[in-house]
């Protein structure tokens, strides 16, 4: 694999060069400096890599919180009335610069949901396929980061096209795919790093991985039955504090649930796909008034079971979690997925039926 050295002096000129063939997306801090987010950069704007740890995951790049699926006329005089059409949208090449490795890994998990042998969600897939992911390795992981125990990590290459490693005066770029190669060419970053680069990256990686103290175990979860875990006595304790806001699901890079809503303004109607959350009562409410997950503890259980058990069983490819720690940091009542995962993993249905 090729390692390119990008001197920091070449950074901005390279991005400016790349703009000719890519729409650039990167982290941007707001004026107050605390709610950074990934968005399309303005013409002269450079990604603020110091703000790469965003409150919200960058999933909105591919999957906006609110997206128009169809437009239609509701004008009684229009021949095309009530005929739905997908709005024209150009899915031109987009480079996501500074995305964290776990967030790129998250897209590969979410893809299992939107790109299936039976159906392909064209909105998600078209946007995803247009992206080149130029990731930035995490040199100093946050204390809530547990990515190394869930098949990701601060230097994980999963889902990335290029991995940038910040070495103070330069970025060392591991070029991982052809898409990555094309982006490096477009930015005109061609200087091969010298022989010491690989060792330098390995050292930083080892230090970052060692700095991650938080871990989860899930080796036993796959052998426990769905019903045993579902009926386990610990859910009331896990879910008590939950206020059923959707924060954990909205900040999460791997939560993909959505709602479909129609809105009409004047004589033009639009059908939207909006992020939804399994924490919300309405999420499963039947028109009859019956609600299969009517109780908040059931909804908390659904979220954790989906991420840590159903997904695991369905795809046999790990958890639906990349360990970014966002839900841990953002939960207003401190419900901690790491604790829940470990509780599930250590559950022994034979041993004890007593509440924790």
């Amino acid at each position, binding site marked *: 694999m090729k390692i390119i050295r990008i001197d920091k002096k070449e950074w901005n000129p390279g991005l400016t060069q790349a703009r000719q063939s890519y729409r650039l997306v990167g982290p941007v801090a707001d004026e107050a400096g605390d709610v950074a987010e990934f968005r399309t950069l303005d013409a002269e704007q450079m990604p603020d890599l110091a703000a790469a740890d965003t*409150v919200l995951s960058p999933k909105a790049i591919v999957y906006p919180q*609110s997206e128009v699926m169809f437009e239609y006329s509701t004008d009684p005089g229009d021949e095309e009335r009530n005929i739905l059409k997908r709005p024209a949208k150009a899915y031109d090449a987009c480079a996501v610069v500074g995305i964290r490795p776990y967030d790129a890994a998250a897209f590969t998990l979410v893809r299992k949901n939107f790109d299936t042998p039976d159906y392909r969600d064209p909105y998600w897939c078209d946007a995803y396929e247009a992206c080149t992911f130029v990731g930035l390795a995490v040199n100093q992981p946050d204390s809530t980061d547990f990515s190394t125990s869930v098949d990701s990590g601060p230097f994980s290459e999963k889902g990335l096209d290029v991995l940038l490693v910040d070495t103070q005066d330069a970025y060392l770029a591991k070029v991982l795919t052809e898409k990555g190669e094309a982006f490096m060419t477009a930015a005109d970053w061609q200087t091969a790093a010298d022989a010491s680069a690989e060792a330098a990256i390995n050292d930083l990686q080892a230090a970052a991985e060692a700095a991650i103290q938080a871990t989860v175990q899930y080796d036993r979860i796959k052998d426990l039955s769905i019903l045993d875990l579902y009926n386990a006595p610990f859910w009331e304790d896990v879910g008590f504090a939950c206020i059923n806001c959707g924060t954990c699901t909205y900040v999460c890079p791997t939560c993909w649930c959505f709602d479909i809503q129609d809105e009409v303004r004047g004589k033009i109607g639009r059908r939207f796909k909006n992020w939804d959350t399994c924490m919300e009562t309405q999420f499963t409410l039947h028109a009859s008034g019956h609600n299969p997950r009517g109780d908040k503890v059931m909804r908390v259980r659904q979220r954790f079971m989906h991420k840590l058990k159903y997904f695991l069983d369905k795809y046999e490819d790990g958890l639906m979690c990349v360990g970014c720690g966002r839900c841990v940091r953002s939960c*207003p009542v401190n419900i901690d997925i790491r604790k829940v995962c470990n509780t599930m993993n250590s559950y022994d249905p034979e041993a004890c039926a007593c509440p924790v």
Partner: protein
Amino acid sequence: MSSYIESIRSIAEKWLADGDVELVIGFRAGSMPLMNEPCLVRTPAGTAQLVWDSNCGINLANYITGRKEKIGIVAKGCDSRNIVNHIVENKISREQLKIIGVPCQGMIDRRKITAMVPGEILEVREEDTAVIVKGADFEETLAKADVLQQNCAVCIHRNPVIYDELAGELVAEQDGIDRYADVKAIEALAEEERWDYFEKLLAPCIRCYACRNACPLCYCPTCFVDESKPQWVGKSQDPIDVRTFHFLRAYHCAGRCTDCGACERACPVGINMRVFTKKLEKDCYDAFGWEAGLDPDVRPPLDTYRPGDPDAFIK
């Protein structure tokens, strides 16, 4: 603080052991600094997990809604006022509750304190009027007064207004503070500036409804934003729909809000939506001399009529 913890545990333990209550709602230590987790304890032994410090900002009155059991609950000043609200609004009876009152000296604003230090906070220690925070490569001593949630800084009801037992001595209430300086600053703006102010304020909103769900007043079985017949508010991210949610929610809190700050604290993107509710709180105070949640036996102004009520706005 540690004496508070001991009293809370021993009162809760006794109530559970004597069968005075079936469960106790309190806080247990969080999994990270500056956070505690609301918890429910059903056994005397379980009370050992109860804690108290300046990171108990969540309003526990939120957790009594709809419960049928005899409840013991830990309550600081604002929690107790919201419990009074629940009693006034016939959501629960006083007899169903036993309250451990906790005189409060304000809760720490996690967002604010995080922004004051150079790195991630890994350890926090509280002393009387100081908070000592440690990170991987720094240690700083901050004055507690500088890191309080803004609503705590202007709070004049730190002591619980109802309780069965106290976890500590009552504290002196703050006086001589301007509680509505922030509202007045907005009032002073021109109409257009006010519009822009709120537009900017709400721009990061992701409509997760954490503010609503953390609010002990927001107990409606179906919130107006979730209604589909009729649908009052659109569900996309249109800024007008976002604003409609926020200002209508504030109206629903008029004459009820205790400015406990739960909404602002819960917000993942740091919106201070209290500027909506505080305006109404101020108006209620100016027009009716009313402060919510002080007395379970007094009806609130919006469900009583007095001949002298101001009516200049009616033409």
